[in-house]
């Protein structure tokens, strides 16, 4: 690893620095299959330029992207992009656009266990690419809302049909969104917060 000494490393721009009063941060995960718009959503709603954190796995733990022909053990980098919203002078919210493949999740300690909730993005042209991740969230008891990222050439289904197809219980919110638009992405996050709030009101488990 080529480490260049502290002077050359750019940190956050001055206007992106958090106040000293920032006490704690919470996180939300944005999930969904390949290419459903996770990165776009993180970028549209983040107040800072989205960043990427990586984790490195050696070949044995990877199972994809085999890079044969290299003499040494190949390391594969799994990247996750994220953004940030300052909620108050004390509280910060982070949004993680999480790789669809569950085998990568454990790389980041507590990524799902600690998340307040999740946004599941679906693309109606390929609904099934988001099925697995929804099941994983259910198994882990992570509450989620479903946002239908409406690509122009995608088939439109009535929400009732989608709810049936996705086997969602009646209380799980489902809505349309255009992840390229900040207001639309923000509304999805607000819907998630309302949903979490309603779970708190009814006292149901997470």
């Amino acid at each position, binding site marked *: *690893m080529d480490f*260049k*000494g502290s002077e050359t*490393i*750019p940190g*956050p721009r001055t206007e992106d620095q*958090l*106040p*000293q009063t*920032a*006490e*704690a*941060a*919470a*996180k939300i995960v944005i999930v969904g299959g390949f290419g459903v718009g996770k990165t776009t959503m993180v970028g549209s*709603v983040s*107040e800072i330029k989205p*960043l*990427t*954190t*990586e*984790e490195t796995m*050696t070949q*044995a*733990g990877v*199972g994809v992207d085999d890079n044969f022909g290299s003499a040494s053990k190949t*390391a594969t980098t799994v990247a996750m992009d*994220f953004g*940030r*919203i300052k*909620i108050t002078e004390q509280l*910060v919210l*982070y949004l993680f656009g999480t790789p669809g493949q569950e*085998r990568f999740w*454990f*790389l*980041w*300690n507590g*990524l799902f266990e*600690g998340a*307040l*909730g999740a946004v599941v993005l679906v693309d109606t042209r390929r*609904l099934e690419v988001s*099925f697995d991740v929804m*099941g994983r969230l*259910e*198994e*882990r008891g992570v509450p989620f809302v479903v946002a239908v990222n409406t690509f122009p050439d995608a*088939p439109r289904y009535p929400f009732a049909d*989608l709810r049936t*197809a*996705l*086997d969602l219980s009646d209380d799980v919110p489902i809505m349309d969104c255009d992840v390229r638009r900040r207001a639309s992405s*923000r509304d999805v996050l*607000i819907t998630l*917060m*309302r949903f979490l*709030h309603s779970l*708190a009101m009814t*006292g149901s488990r997470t």
Partner: protein
Amino acid sequence: MTPPQRQRRSPQEDPPPQPAQDKKEDERPNPERLYVVAGADGNRADLDLVTLIVARVEDPPHSATPEHAALLRLCAAPLSVAELSAYLSLPFGVVTVLLTDMLAAELVQARAPIVRKALPDRSLLEAVMHGLQRL
């Protein structure tokens, strides 16, 4: 046109098993991480992606490595472990090892994240909702 059909799953009491894998080498619980910079995996501080790290001193001690010095400079204002990893272009695991040293040496302070609880904190959720509405 009929969309494909999913089947809901139920919560599991125990953490779900590692994803099904058929190769022998995958039997170890975690893949090796790279410790080129950080050395062996000792007792690592329990740091979340969104644990906020804040410097407690202005200048790095003489013993500080370039990585420690860079971290210290970055977290003059609070910054999450995820951001530190991003700005340093170092894997999350490496950064947590570096920070473990720095916490022990009292060079930085860690502010614990807010995590999901069985009974969510309503006032927190309301604060987040209001914050989002201002976006």
